[in-house]
């Protein structure tokens, strides 16, 4: 059976290189070998998990020559999650962290409500109900903003904190439904009402 694809994750290495990481435990069946040039969107082979095979695709921004392949010349290699399947000697590579820089340079009046602890974020009380807050809403001190699942218990995220005003307008709910967040991650981008 051949079902679906995995877009590989990349780990940047020290010198002009990167590694393509296994998305799962399983058997890696490579389609490229040392010296081959691989580029974004290309399949480097398949991973088989209990008889189900998925294509392994090179992610955006990666292009280069295969410098090393796991398991040497073997056609089937048992791998675990996060193993480096290929080492790529990069000829050109987009910096994957570029996406993060859009968060900087906040204009005046920008505030943030951050995660008080690490966990999984939910914006709504149950999958069939509307979110607690949406962009454009004005939130008040004490209001519930979302849920954080920590150690299998659901905790309410309540609008509070010394650095935040009595009320503020929601610019954006940053994490997607069910995203894992770590302590300090921005949950809500807010705008103070006095400034607008």
């Amino acid at each position, binding site marked *: 059976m051949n079902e679906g694809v995995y877009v590989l994750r990349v780990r940047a290495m020290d010198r002009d290189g990167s590694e393509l990481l296994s*998305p*799962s*435990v*399983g*058997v890696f069946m490579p389609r490229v070998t040392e010296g081959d040039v691989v580029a974004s969107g290309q399949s480097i082979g398949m991973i*088989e*998990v*209990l008889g*189900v095979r998925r294509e392994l695709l090179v992610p955006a921004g990666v292009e280069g020559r295969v410098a090393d392949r796991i398991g040497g010349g073997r056609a089937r290699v*048992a791998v*675990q*999650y*996060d*193993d480096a399947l290929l080492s790529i000697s990069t000829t050109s590579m987009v910096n994957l962290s570029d996406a993060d820089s859009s968060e900087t340079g906040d204009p005046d009046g920008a505030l943030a409500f951050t995660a008080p*602890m*690490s*966990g999984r974020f939910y914006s709504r*009380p*149950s*999958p*069939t*109900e509307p979110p607690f807050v949406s962009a454009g809403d004005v939130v008040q001190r004490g209001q519930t903003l979302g849920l954080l*699942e*920590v*150690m*299998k*218990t*659901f*905790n309410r995220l309540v609008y509070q904190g010394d650095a935040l005003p009595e009320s503020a307008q929601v610019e954006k709910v940053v994490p997607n439904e069910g995203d*894992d967040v770590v302590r300090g991650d921005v949950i809500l981008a807010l705008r103070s009402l006095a400034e607008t």
Partner: protein
Amino acid sequence: MKRFRRLFIANRGEVAARIARTCDRLAITPVFGVSEADRDAPYLRGCESVLLGPARSSESYLARERIVQAAVQTRCSALHPGWGFLAEDPLFASLCEAHGVTFIGPPPAVMQKLGRKTPAKASMAAAGLKLIPGSDGVVHGVEQAREVANAIGFPVLLKAESGGGGRGMRIVRKASEMKAAYDSAQSESLACFADGRLYLEKLIEGGRHIEIQLLADKYGKVVHMGERDCSVQRNHQKLIEESPATVLNDAEREQTLAAAVRATSAIGYVGAGTMEFLLDEGGELRFMEMNARLQVEHPVSEMRTDIDLVEAQIRIATGEPLWFSQEDIRLRGHAIECRINAEDPESGFAPSPGVIDRWEVALCGDEHVRVDTHVESGYEVPPHYDSLICKVIAWGQDRDAACDRLTEALQSLRCDGISTTTPMHLAVLSSKEFRENRYDTSAVPGWES
């Protein structure tokens, strides 16, 4: 008879370390399947492990195909699921068997029957156990739940058809509360068990939670290892468990133990299992559910019988007939266990993940105290999984002796960096309500919360 040389542990934390200890004693090589969040955990040191996927359980500890693939490619002939995660998932058990890996647990068909709570209740009633009044099978929607509740009378308890561990459970005191309770129970059940179906039982308030430990081989032989009282609970989460249940009268104990053995045999159960009962005001034990797995509190029964339940599970799975009979099992003295969770009892039991700067337990070589844990100084309790970090179990000639010994052990426990439930346990153990057995599941004795 076959023998397992390599056994895959499809779980994490305390139970994974617990299973590995018995494997070591039986000269079986344990192989741990772990998530990225646990890859550097101290209990894996010097052991074989394989990385299944990222921290998220759905891509690691709940990813059936990845786990079985990992067991196969690490050449394991058996798999122990521990508790929680996939321990009671018949689909997972079948998948193991289909790929030549012996699943250590009951046959998938039996598990399926027990995992659906309402058919399980029907089987137990047929075998002579008393039930709690409730819905006949699952309820279809809020309206029907209201109708059933009106018929049996409020308050009622909504429970997850595929549930366990107190998840997806809600108390409903009047008809107007039904919708909100139903919705939240349903979404929690869906999140925890991928099954949003609910059933309904009359809420018995002020009851005690009593359970019976059972062991069955593949040839129909069943024994019990006595009962446990798990009535110190908060929001249906057990905190302290002990054996025997001294509140139980001897006639009810003997009668229910015998009926539980009969029922276990009647449903074709194999392996270690636990029947949970509610002791009502009339002193009668009413069946709630049977858990088709090893329980967190199993050491309490091990301390009284000197039977290693994990060893029994493994040997039964190889096809060995039970090597002792009911008469050989001597239930000695009193044993009691505290679950140490990474939670802050002073602020509503808020989760307290983080780095344990310093971890110390001074046991002074006391053979009657047992500490089951996977943590040590420097360990980081990850936020992704449940909060159990340690269990301390003590044995004594009688209840007071066991409680005193447990208190002493807990006082020697040092855990800096995160909050734990230890202060609450010490308060409970020294409280009059607990020592005089005047409490029930509705409130933690000796602790205001």
